[in-house]
């Protein structure tokens, strides 16, 4: 299971893409995994997960092959 990271999340993880050896089934579980692996993500103003380029709620299921991304607070414009 591959996870894309952007902005400060990429800096915290030290890589633009990480691999999860054990796939997770749900956004909430992914978030827990990421917070444990990279505690500094908890310090961010927000940390959204996008699944297939759409913002995903914590209850959303994750399928193999989904494009999953960590979205720290945006600051475009």
């Amino acid at each position, binding site marked *: 299971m591959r996870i*894309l990271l*952007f*902005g*400060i999340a*990429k*800096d915290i993880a030290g890589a633009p893409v990480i691999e999860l050896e054990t796939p997770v089934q749900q956004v909430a579980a992914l978030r827990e995994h990421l917070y444990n692996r990279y505690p500094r993500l908890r*310090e*961010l*103003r927000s940390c959204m997960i*996008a699944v297939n*380029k*759409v*913002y995903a709620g914590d209850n959303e299921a994750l399928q193999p092959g989904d494009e999953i*991304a960590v*979205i*720290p*607070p*945006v*600051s*475009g*414009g």
Partner: protein
Amino acid sequence: MRIMNILTAIKDHITVQEATDFVQTPECGGVAVFVGTVRNQTRGKKVHRLFFECYTPMALLEMEKIAQYTRETMGIHKIAILHVSGEKLPGDTVVVIAAAAPHRGAAFTACQYAIDTLKETVPIWKKEYFEDGEVWVAAHP
């Protein structure tokens, strides 16, 4: 992306002219535009340069959602939403939104909604470089 009445783009360099050229039609008397540029200071600290990182495919989808929503609910005919990526200097144009409507009030409402929403939802990140360091804007509370 360019469908009949919507233009969205993320690229190195954008101009006000390309946005207004796209939205202007002889049917629409009023075009409202927002132009965002790099400021030269943040909370009193001099900004030397900026870097915009984009999750481009999702950012374009979110920009299209904004464009569609304004078209469906705000009485505008055409809208262009353009954003830069990569390194930028103070004074550079980083975002341009242009909305055309038969009535100018609708054009202003749509343009302001679009920039407000872009800043909240579109996955683009700005890093500011100061003399003594760098920071991802708005990342922390």
